[in-house]
């Protein structure tokens, strides 16, 4: 809820706005509303006026709440605090001393820091709780002590149940914490396993690279040998061709025949001389 909305809801018909510890932007002030700033001591609040008080949530809170306000003035305490951390006891004590009764509390929108607004009215009587859902649509009413009985009943029972519910929620949180610890440990184990597997993969990668290098060397060697074999084959082919050409030549044929004839002559000579020195 915007501060502007809070002012509109709680300032009296002819009331003025008194700013304490805060200076609202003009756009946040409802049009036509008289505004008294800090230091305007000569103009004390009167019934119907609204005090907008920016107060600390620390121990100095009481000093920011006027204790001599006239009946019928409203106070909007702006407390810079997360709503879940509102110091309930301190706020109620500060208001009670000033005879202020809480009539509304809301989270303030549009402020740079988390802010809670506690709205109280100066009264010597009991102000019955008003309907708070769309309550600007209809006037509030109540059935005297009956509403008080109901509120007190709710306060008592909800107080008891809230403690139990809070305890149950804390137990749930603890259980979730334990489970989270287990999951974290499992995750760490998975991480360690993964690192081990990654190391294995890295080793395998190195081995594969070594094998690749070895394979390449072998391929190179095989290639060299193949080239060498090709060379030798070509050389042999060339030799074979040369021999074939040689054997086909007339000179070779003549020489061959001569050599054959020479052999025959030698054999004849050996038989004739019974020369058998070598066998």
């Amino acid at each position, binding site marked *: *809820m915007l501060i502007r909305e809070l002012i509109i809801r709680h300032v009296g018909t002819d009331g003025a706005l008194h700013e304490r510890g805060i200076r609202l932007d003009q756009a946040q002030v409802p049009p036509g509303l008289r505004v008294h700033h800090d230091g305007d001591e000569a103009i004390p609040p009167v019934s119907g006026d609204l005090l907008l008080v920016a107060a600390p949530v620390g121990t100095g809170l009481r000093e920011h709440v006027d204790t001599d306000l006239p009946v019928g003035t409203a106070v909007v305490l702006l407390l810079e605090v997360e709503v879940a951390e509102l110091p309930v006891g301190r706020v109620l004590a500060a208001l009670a001393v000033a005879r202020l009764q809480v009539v509304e509390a809301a989270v303030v929108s549009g402020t740079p820091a988390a802010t809670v607004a506690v709205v109280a009215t100066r009264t010597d009587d009991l102000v019955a709780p008003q309907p708070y*859902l769309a309550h600007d649509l209809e006037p509030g*009413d109540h059935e005297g002590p009956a509403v008080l*009985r109901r509120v007190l009943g709710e306060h008592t029972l*909800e107080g008891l149940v809230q403690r139990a519910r809070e305890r149950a929620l804390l137990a749930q949180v603890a259980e979730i914490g334990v489970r989270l610890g287990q999951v974290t440990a499992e995750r760490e184990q998975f991480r360690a396993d993964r690192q081990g597997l990654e190391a294995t993969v890295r080793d395998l990668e190195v081995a594969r690279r070594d094998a690749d290098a070895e394979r390449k060397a072998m391929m190179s060697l095989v290639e060299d040998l193949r080239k060498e074999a090709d060379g030798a084959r070509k050389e042999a082919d060339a030799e074979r061709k040369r021999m074939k050409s040689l054997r086909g030549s007339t000179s070779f044929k003549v020489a061959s025949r001569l050599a054959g004839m020479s052999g025959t002559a030698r054999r004849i000579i050996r038989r004739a001389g019974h020369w058998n020195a070598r066998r």
Partner: protein
Amino acid sequence: MTTPDPWLAAGDLSYDDMGNLAFNALRIGRLLDVLGTLAEPVAPLRLLDAGCGTGWLTRALASFGHQVDGIDSATATVEACRGQSRADGRDHYAVSRLDTWAPSYLYDAVVSVDVLFLISQDSLWEASVVNLASLVRSGGRLVLADHNLAQDHPWGGRQVSRARRRYVDLLAAEGLVYRRSVPYEFRDSDAGFHVFDRIA
């Protein structure tokens, strides 16, 4: 229409899909008028959607920053609602009849739309209304959808709209005061919301 729309899953059988889409959008608007527009997500109002059916209203109310419970007596329906529940945990579902739901906390507002006139048995209707009223905190609001009639009116053999007076008298005894009836003002519909506040 091939794409299922969450608001099309409920409405009035006498309207087509687009008619129900408009009908439900309008009803949410009317309901926001009744419940107020002061939702505060970090400190949400706690609401009950009694007889949530497909959960279209539960999810819609949760989308405005409220914390909403949806209850329904049909297990399969509630399971379906849970399957569509919001990631931020603002809507929560349970299987329960309207006359037996008894959580350990009170609601800022209890809403029951398109349910009470489906309960033909009078004693069950009465027990349901009384139980829902018991769940509303001081200053909180009870919003019940029905036709705004002077006399009870049966619809065929299975539905009965109760006279507004019956709601008012029943709830007065429970500490709730009748505020007004908010008609849907949609086409020819003469139904709407009966609005009650807890004052005692």
